């Protein structure tokens, strides 16, 4: 599927209660204060819902920053313009 990065940034905004515009390549578990293990689970739920994918068990634990999230979604056939 085709998707815009804005959609992905909006998912981060919805999950972490941050501005979509402030999400960038350096957004990670180390820079977002609210990103704890429960938020991480909620991020997985939101990504799966919004992009219609099911992450593997390994992928659900390894997506610890924005570039990795993007890469995992690309592995599931999501094409970012």
């Amino acid at each position, binding site marked *: 599927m085709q998707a815009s990065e804005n959609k992905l940034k909006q998912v981060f905004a*919805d*999950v972490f209660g941050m501005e979509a515009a402030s999400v960038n390549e350096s957004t990670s578990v180390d820079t977002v204060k609210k990103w704890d293990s*429960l938020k991480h*689970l909620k991020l997985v*739920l939101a990504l799966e*819902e919004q992009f219609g994918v099911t992450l593997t*068990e390994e992928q*659900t634990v390894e997506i610890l920053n924005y570039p990795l999230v993007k890469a995992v979604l690309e592995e599931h056939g999501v094409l970012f313009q």
Partner: protein
Amino acid sequence: MNRDLVSSALARIETQPDYTAYQALANALEQANPDARTPPLRVAVLRNFTFEPVLPVLQGEIARAGFYPEIYLGDFDAIAADALDGGSPLYSFRPDFIIVAQWLETLSPALATRFTSLSAADVEREVDRIVAATVEIITGIRRHSLAPVLVNNFPLPFRRTLGILDAQSANYHTHTVLRLNAALLEQLQAFRDAYVVDYMSLMASLGTAAGFDERYWHMAGAPLGRAALLAFGQEYAKFIRPLRGKSRKCLVLDCDNTLWGGVIGEDGMSGIRLGAEFPGSCYQALQREILNLHDRGVILALCSKNNEADAIEVLRQHPEMILREQHFAAMRINWQDKVTNLTSLAEELNVGLDAFVFVDDSQFECDFVRERLPQVAVLQLSSAPATFAARLSAPGYFDSLSFSAEDRNRTPMYRDESERRELLRSAGSLPEYLRGLGLVAEIGIAGESVIARVSQLTQKTNQFNLTTRRYGGGQIRAFVAATAADVFYVRLRDRLSDLGIIGVGILVFRGADAEIDTFLLSCRALGRGAEDAFLAHMAAAAHARGCRRLVGRYLPTSKNAQVADFYSRHGFTAIEKNEGASAWELMLDAGLPECPDWMEIRLVQEEAHSAGQ
């Protein structure tokens, strides 16, 4: 700014109620300052599994019902410790609702995952132990709080330990969980305001694949899949509306392409799709669903752009119609816009627009109503008529926690009300008309048989309600048992009908003072002087008991402005005014309020009536 964030997140839920939208709303709510205009609703969650992913949905639904959600989340698997200790933070939180969320895998790992390791006697011991532990928790809660308690039952095993053999004996895995659920229900019924949240049925209708997510279970102790998070959160919220006087009461329906397929004005009686064959059968199924709601006490109304004669002909003559004229309390079949029609329906039926559900097939009409009357719940039924019945039922708009004789008779009562208005138009003066009605107010002191109805009235009555104090059955029972309080109810009859129990008054006695804790009247009984008769009787009863002074309070809400001057109109003197709230006194020795001369008062013994008759 933050308010806008909440409003736009709420609007997003209306059009796309997905899990991510609930997360966005929950974040917006956390960032917003609790707004003075939305009253808080405090929900405590005691749990033995990772309940956190359900919370955004629960918080969002509480906000949609008009409250600001405040959540107390108990520590993981510390339910009993919280519940049994009166000094625990659970009770200083002063919850309005307490959720006890138990997952069988934590509660009894053996029963849930090692069934074959248990002997028949072990299994029974486990069942008894789980039921007894749950009863102990609720008993503990009731010692310290009167808040309604929501306790779940257990989903059936999604991996049957014995495979196909499992269904062959009542002593095997699946039937053991069924038995456990039945035993739990039986015990819970002994408690006031303790309710079963039916995880078993929810999970059955979702299906295992959508309901469970074993990845989340292993990673975070969170058993529920995304679909279940939505369904469970929404299910809990369904309990909040009826218990907080926010139930929807009236279903307003479009005709063409909603109640039948096609357009009566163009397709004619023989052309519209309605009958036992597809696709007409889909519309019949929807009509049956609507008729079930009617039988549960939901008021039905029509709002359709049509020639009135065309639509009425279908109601009267079409052989395949399930719904008929007598099922509708009011109709607006004309060419006016639907906002105007809904507003005038609300006026005629004396039901607030926030108790309306509006169903239509047209995107335009639905958007128009959503925008102009945001308090109305809007359901658009277009395309796939086979799904209409399920889509009407799923949101649980009209869910209630009681089912009384008054509910069964509601539409006839509202229709009688319309006839009464006709009588009023033809009679001369109001008192003359009222004298002609043969009104009888039967007033009694509440006892066991009417407690459910009395409690229901405190929860449902919004407009003619001086203090808007919502009481569960347990709290009403406490008033009834107290020597320093009396609970009065009034039942109204006239020559057209019996309106049932329509008013509640609670007096609390302190020395020479009697204070009116609660005074309310169902809006369909207004305008006949029943409130005057009821107040006169309560004042006389207080005086007879030796009280010298009657004290009343008016506590304003968004709904009860019509009673702001109730006490001044009845000869009370203001003794306190504070931000819209006021307190009033009446010296009883100086004279008692009068009963209108057209109203006959009969005092009744409780035994003469039962709420369920």
